[in-house]
């Protein structure tokens, strides 16, 4: 090569690179290409030497440049250039890379082409081998044809032979028997005429292929028997050839596959039913094949996951399993699968909504009629709600358990077989027994009741038949320390355990202290009653003695008084003229005081009698009683009598004499304290509230100051002086005592100089 122009990008050099690429296509092999290229590139400006390396070797020589032959991931060696003049070489470096890429393309294309050619050669060789085999087989077949025909003539298998037009040349007895014809009805006839009408054309289409291929296998036709029934026949056969290789006749055997076809149809229908069922229910259904990969999911599954069948097939379904459940889920599945055992597991599967929902997946191995393992079928139910309910139930049971255990009362939950299911801490705390020591009701009765356990045990056993809560009453139990406690038991039925055992919850109140307190109260009450009775008797005795004393005092005092009064009057009569005026006045005072004292004694007697007097109760016309009493009081001086306004009064029940005394005292007071008025008015009325009648006696007299009203009804208590208004101070005390004995109340209202009103109540007759 001549000296090159070393200025950048000499056109001839670029032309050389380009031409080399063209020549490469014509070179026969890689060796030739590599030597061609190395020789050509040695003349490249700046290049001293060119070589080819097969692989990416370590390069230590700094002057060496490497250019790989690389097409995509395929590495086909590399070009190594020893560059003597880097400056001269530099402009071509990029072009050389392109060149090497093109070279790699050519090399790869060649390799592919070579591979193709080798494969074609191989294919050709195989075609030739196969052709030789077929020729040999044809020869053998021709040889066996004679045996073939003889064999089928006596065979139990239906045999037929057709000519080139499809007409019967031969059928064997088994054929005639299978289809119900005689030989004369068949020979010479067209095979198509023996087919079901829908299949006549099919034979016309298939027969030329049979003749062309020389063989048929398992070709099915629906054939019509002479009796009109249709049977499905599967035909296997071959063409018989003349010695020159021309078509001579067909040889076919027929197999009645009607039953198999029906079975297949039934299978298809069954499959259809399965799919219909699978897709209409609530269950998510899947099946898996022998490779453990899933090969079917029903529509319910697809709707649930919102994914396509393609996504779910194989192990795709596992993508939807919750990451926390996946390992366990796969372990259960694989373990069961390898053992061919049914399995049931719960796991979370992602729902179309994006939420995970709990499924219960039950898988069962599938087998065919011959017990060959086919894979698995499984169905899943969405048990999210059930799990939530279970969870809620567990929480509820836990709450109940805690409620029992932590209850401040002794509580025990026990089953009819005597097992103590739960006992509260309080039970243990009070009795001193641990839960282990109270594992059964037998343990409890033994420890708590000792010799009485049989009786208590019978009571407890009766509890398991309870339908409602039962109050059992007090039982004395013995604690571990030997102390006795009084427990008041109540029990209630708690339904049944999941295993059917009936349960009862028994609660106790430790009433030891209360019972002691109650006994103490009862003892104190009895003592108090006795003391009251004793005291009452003492008081009654004292009262009687006092009344006897008052009566005797009053009675005994009246005799000397009468003596004093009598002797004063005798003194006035006999010696009045001898005495001066002052002497007569003094005698008058003695006489007046003696009478007043007599009145006092009478009033006191009446008052004290009232305590002892028995009441005679009867219906009383209160209006009439008030009127009579008023008239009685004013009869002596009717002209000075106050105006009397008597409103109709309701009848009352009581002692008539006593109630007359009430009106007499109240009306006398009213007359007395209103006599200083120019128009004295006395008003008697009544009102009725809440079953109680209130009677009132009102006057417009001098009235009284209410701050002293408590004194009104006291014995010998007076608000006015004797000089102002005469009286003993016993009248109102008597009124109060009478009203109290009738079960009523008495009170007064009034203001100084504005009159006074006295009220008293009596129960209405129907309430007494």
């Amino acid at each position: 090569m001549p000296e090159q122009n070393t200025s950048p990008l000499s056109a001839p050099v670029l032309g050389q690179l380009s031409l080399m690429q063209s020549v490469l296509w014509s070179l026969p092999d890689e060796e030739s290409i590599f030597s061609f290229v190395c020789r050509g590139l040695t003349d490249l400006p700046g290049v001293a030497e060119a070589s080819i390396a097969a692989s990416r070797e370590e390069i230590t020589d700094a002057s060496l440049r490497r250019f790989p032959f690389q097409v995509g991931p395929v590495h086909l060696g590399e070009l190594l250039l020893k560059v003597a003049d880097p400056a001269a070489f530099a402009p071509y470096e990029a072009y050389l890379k392109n060149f090497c890429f093109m070279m790699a393309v050519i090399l790869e294309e060649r390799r592919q082409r070579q591979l193709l050619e080798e494969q074609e050669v191989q294919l050709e060789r195989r075609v030739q081998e196969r052709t030789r085999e077929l020729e040999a087989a044809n020869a053998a077949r021709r040889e066996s044809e004679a045996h073939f025909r003889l064999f089928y003539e006596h065979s139990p298998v239906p045999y037929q032979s057709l000519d080139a037009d499809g007409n019967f040349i031969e059928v064997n007895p088994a054929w005639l028997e299978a289809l119900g014809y005689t030989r004369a009805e068949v020979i010479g006839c067209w095979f198509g005429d023996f087919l079901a009408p829908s299949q006549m054309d099919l034979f016309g289409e298939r027969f030329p292929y049979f003749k062309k291929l020389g063989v048929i296998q398992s070709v099915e036709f629906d054939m019509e028997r002479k009796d009109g029934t249709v049977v499905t026949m599967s035909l296997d056969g071959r063409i018989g050839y003349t010695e020159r290789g021309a078509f001579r006749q067909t040889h076919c055997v027929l197999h009645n596959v009607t039953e198999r076809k029906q079975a297949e149809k039934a299978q298809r229908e069954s499959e259809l039913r399965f799919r219909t069922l699978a897709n209409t229910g609530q269950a998510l259904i899947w099946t898996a094949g022998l490779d453990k990969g899933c090969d079917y999911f029903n529509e319910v599954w697809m709707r649930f996951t919102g994914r396509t069948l393609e996504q779910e097939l194989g192990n795709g379904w596992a993508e939807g399993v919750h990451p926390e459940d996946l390992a366990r889920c796969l372990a259960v599945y694989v373990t069961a699968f390898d053992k061919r055992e049914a399995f049931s597991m719960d796991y979370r599967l992602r729902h179309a909504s994006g939420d995970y929902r709990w499924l219960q997946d039950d898988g069962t191995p599938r087998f065919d009629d011959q017990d060959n393992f086919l894979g698995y079928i499984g169905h899943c139910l969405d048990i999210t709600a059930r799990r939530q309910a279970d969870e809620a139930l567990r929480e509820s049971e836990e709450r109940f358990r805690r409620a029992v255990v932590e209850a401040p009362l002794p509580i025990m939950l026990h089953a009819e077989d005597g097992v103590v299911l739960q006992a509260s801490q309080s039970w243990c705390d009070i009795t001193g027994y641990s839960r282990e020591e109270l594992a059964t009701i037998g343990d409890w009765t033994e420890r708590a009741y000792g010799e009485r356990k049989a009786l208590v045990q019978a009571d407890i056993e009766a509890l398991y038949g309870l339908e409602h809560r039962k109050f059992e009453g007090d039982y004395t139990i013995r604690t571990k320390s030997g102390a006795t406690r009084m427990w008041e038991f109540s029990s209630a039925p708690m339904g049944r355990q999941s295993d059917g055992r009936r349960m009862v919850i028994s609660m106790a109140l430790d009433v030891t202290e209360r019972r002691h307190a109650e006994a103490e109260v009862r003892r104190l009450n009895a003592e108090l009653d006795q003391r009251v009775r004793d005291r009452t008797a003492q008081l009654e005795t004292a009262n009687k003695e006092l009344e006897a004393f008052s009566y005797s005092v009053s009675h005994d005092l009246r005799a000397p008084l009468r003596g004093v009064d009598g002797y004063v009057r005798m003194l006035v009569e006999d010696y009045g003229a001898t005495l001066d005026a002052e002497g007569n006045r003094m005698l008058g005072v003695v006489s007046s005081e003696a009478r007043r004292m007599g009145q006092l004694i009478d009033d006191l007697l009446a008052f004290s009698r009232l305590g002892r007097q028995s009441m005679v109760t009867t219906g009383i016309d209160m209006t009439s009683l008030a009127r009579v009493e008023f008239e009685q009081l004013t009869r002596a001086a009717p002209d000075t009598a106050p105006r009397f306004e008597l409103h109709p009064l309701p009848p009352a029940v009581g002692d008539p004499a006593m109630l007359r005394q009430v009106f007499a005292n109240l009306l006398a007071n009213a007359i007395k304290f209103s006599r200083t008025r120019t128009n004295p008015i006395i008003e008697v009325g009544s009102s009725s509230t809440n079953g109680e009648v209130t009677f009132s006696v009102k006057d417009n007299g001098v009235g009284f100051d209410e701050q002293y009203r408590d004194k009104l009804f006291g014995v010998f208590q007076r608000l006015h002086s004797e000089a102002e208004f005469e009286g003993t101070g016993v009248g109102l005390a008597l009124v109060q005592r009478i009203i109290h004995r009738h079960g009523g109340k008495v009170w007064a209202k009034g203001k100084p100089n504005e009159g006074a009103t006295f009220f008293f109540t009596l129960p209405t007759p129907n309430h007494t």
Partner: protein
Amino acid sequence: MKPNQTTIDLGFAEERFPAGVHICQIFSDDDERQDSLLKFVLSGLQAGERTSCFSDKASESSVAEFLGRHGVSCAEVRGSGAFTLAGTREIYFQNDRFDPERMLRVLTQYHEDSVRQGYPAARVIGEMTPEVQHLPGGSRLLEYESQVSLLLREHPVTAVCQYDARAFDGATIMDVLKVHPMMVIRGSVVHNPFFIPPEIFLAH
């Protein structure tokens, strides 16, 4: 006949070229070789040029059959001396050696005879076989080819040298390219950028 005054049809290319071009054809396919050879011969004979073919692969019958199909009687053109058909060895390797000087004389003679006999032009197609590499004088092959380029300036015989890429190694093919100003590649005639003018090549 004067050099470079007329253009000729090579038969296998669309383009026409001045008489006396020196072309090498690198082929790797028997059909490609045969196709070029027959078309070159036919176009030469049809143009009335004196035509020679030196190849072991061109059987007389196949050439005659091809020419006959295109209205050219092989026997006739051979009889008249317009067409020479001979084997490679017979022409290039006489006495079991490759003698560049003799071959150059043959070419010179061939051209001078053709001119004298009144042919409008002369052409030669010959296939060099790898045997040359093992014969005495074989190492002078490139020198010979370069000399041919020089000779054709005076004696413008249109020359096509066929090289079977399957028979020569790649480096030799590259060397051969350097001594031919034009080349046929995949059916196209192109100027050869590797060509080293004979004055330079021979000086080295």
